[in-house]
């Protein structure tokens, strides 16, 4: 009965009900996008960090991994020390650098990683073999495209250029053993990985046994933070960064997006609330006579209140459901825009859909829809029946 009356009331002004639903849908879409934005980036980054199973990253003290070109000396000694800790399962050293591939008329510059293939956590092999031999490398599709090389080809790779001698330095002939997908690199960035010692020799880092980063996998059941604290005590020139600390750093650096999502999400919610409140209030004002008649023939106050609350909730729920679908489309579009951020790993999403985000958005909208009906329903319930009937009859 209540829902029939509520629906009849909404159908009476179909065009404005439709507009209100559309307005709520847009507000709901924006709200869902902002809920996704507020949590998506952090969750996406967390998934990226833990995807290869390393919980700790050791970088030169005062720096973040690959944030600068600072390096850690004596990597072998550090690895030996880390292995003395029974909580440490795997240590993966990584050296970063730039290499050049001379071609007939140009040079292709590429990001290069020196790794230990058996424990590396930077790429997934997509084709061919891993770079286990000293004169081999694995390359990503962007590198192969830029150089025109294929798996199995031998390429000239140089570590740098000497402008005085006008020649490449530390040039090697390396065989492309396989094609790989690099986990932490942005799309479109040519990249290769080769055995650590090969890159160290090419870039002059072999003597001091330098690496850019050490990734540490701890044993199951061990608290990575306690291992990190132990490393910080043992090695004053490096710092151990746990996944949590890395996430905190990302939060700090990209706090703008989180704050923007809170502000725009809040505004969307308020706009949706105002729209439903206005519509239901005007609707109640238009039919005070009807409400007074219903009250006069014995319909209870609670009945009237429930009917009006139902009207607000119906607009909010239909608008929210439409808005959630619309929100997924707009989130995809907005994510495409932000994925063009220079240097952003291709696996990072700013708008990551999680069922929790959808439930939060839906829940907030339903609550706001119910709240939007509170004032008009109170107004309807407190109408003086006799006076309203007299005034309406005169009108």
């Amino acid at each position, binding site marked *: 009965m209540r829902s029939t009356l509520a629906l009849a009331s909404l159908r009476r002004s179909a065009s404005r009900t439709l507009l209100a639903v559309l307005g709520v849908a847009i507000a709901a879409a924006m709200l869902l996008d902002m809920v996704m934005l507020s949590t998506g980036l952090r969750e996406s980054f967390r998934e990226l960090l833990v995807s290869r199973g390393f919980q700790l990253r050791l970088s030169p003290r005062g720096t973040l991994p690959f*944030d600068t070109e600072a390096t850690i000396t004596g990597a072998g000694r550090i690895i030996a020390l880390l292995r003395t800790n029974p909580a440490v399962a795997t240590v993966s050293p990584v050296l970063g650098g730039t290499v050049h591939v001379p071609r007939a008329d140009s040079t292709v510059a590429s990001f290069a990683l020196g790794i230990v293939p058996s424990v590396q956590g930077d790429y997934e092999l997509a084709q061919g073999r891993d770079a286990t031999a000293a004169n081999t490398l694995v390359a990503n599709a962007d590198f192969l495209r830029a150089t025109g090389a294929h798996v199995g080809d031998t390429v000239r790779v140089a570590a740098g250029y000497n402008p005085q001698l006008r020649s490449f330095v530390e040039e090697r002939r390396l065989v492309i053993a396989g094609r790989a997908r690099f986990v932490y690199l942005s799309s479109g960035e040519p990249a290769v990985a080769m055995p650590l010692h090969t890159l160290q020799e090419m870039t002059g880092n072999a003597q001091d046994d330098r690496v850019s980063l050490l990734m540490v996998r701890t044993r199951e059941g061990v608290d990575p933070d306690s291992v990190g604290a132990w490393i910080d005590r043992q090695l004053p020139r490096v710092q151990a960064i746990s996944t949590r600390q890395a996430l905190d750093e990302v939060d700090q650096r990209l706090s703008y997006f989180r704050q923007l999502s809170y502000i725009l999400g809040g505004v969307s919610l308020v706009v949706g609330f105002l729209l439903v409140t206005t519509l239901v209030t005007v609707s109640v004002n238009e039919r005070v006579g009807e409400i007074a008649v219903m009250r006069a023939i014995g319909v209870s106050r609670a009945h009237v209140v429930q009917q009006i609350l139902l009207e607000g909730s119906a607009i909010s729920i239909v608008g929210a459901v439409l808005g959630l679908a619309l929100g997924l489309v707009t989130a995809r579009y907005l994510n495409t825009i932000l994925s063009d951020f220079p240097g952003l790993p291709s696996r990072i999403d700013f708008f990551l859909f999680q069922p929790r985000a959808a439930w939060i958005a839906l829940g907030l909208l339903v609550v706001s829809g119910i709240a939007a009906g509170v004032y008009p329903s109170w107004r309807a319930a407190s109408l003086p029946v006799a006076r309203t009937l007299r005034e309406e009859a005169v009108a």
Partner: protein
Amino acid sequence: MSILLPILLALHLPPQARVPQPAASPASPSVHSTSAYATSAHAPSSATSPAAPAPRTIAIDDRLAADAGLHVGDQVVVSSTPDGPGDTVRIGAIMKRNADPSEIARNEYEVRLHLDQLQSLIGYGDRVDRFAVATRDSAATRQALAAINQAAFGFHAYRSTDIAVETSETFKVVSRFHRAIGVITIVASAVFLLCILLLKVDERRRDVAALRLIGISRASVMRSVVLEAAAVAVLGSLLGVGLGFITSGIVNAYYGALYRTPLRFSIITPGIVLFAVVLSLVLGIGAGILAARRLVRTPPLALLGR
């Protein structure tokens, strides 16, 4: 990855003046200046060392000065590693941070040293990362670019504007994102406005019916409704502009304090104000026409409910 030289300069300060640990950034000396700059990268680890006979001067940024409690005239030791030997220097100046958007997210301190001192500290020899060349005019810039790129094999000269375009890619992305959000907001506002105007017009069904019955033409009723919608739109947009200035001030104050930068995050230009007012007017009049058409097409008696 930075394409420039990484330099870690440990700034050894008195133990009580401990500072957070920011990431390091590259040094970038240039030939038109006698100074180089680098960013401090490490927490202090030792007390001030005995002063040299005539310590050279450095300049530090105001955030580092505030966080570490440093003042002009203080002596500190700078070194390339936390525990390495360093040079005792005197703080000669405290500088304001540049309004550089590319540095916003990097919570770094900046220290400027004389070029030769920095080269010596980091064992860099007589090398620099880049040269900055001042030219007289745009024609001279073109000539210099051509001359350098032809003569200096292995180097490449760039216009400052080209580098600015390259490094501002991040902000272009943010700008595109803001535009997309703006479009969604405009669509939502249009729907909201149309809805409100429909409600307002619906409320006056009886008034309009009475006007029509006493002989007022449809066109007059339509004009009055559209005029009212335009007035509401102008008034709303003026209020919105005022609100925009207030929120812009809040945004600038908040993010300026958060990132400790003189950079302005939100700028309201006359063009933006004009765009907002015109858009609001167009939406308002459009919504008014739609609402009024619906009203004047309904017979007066039907408007009265008969």
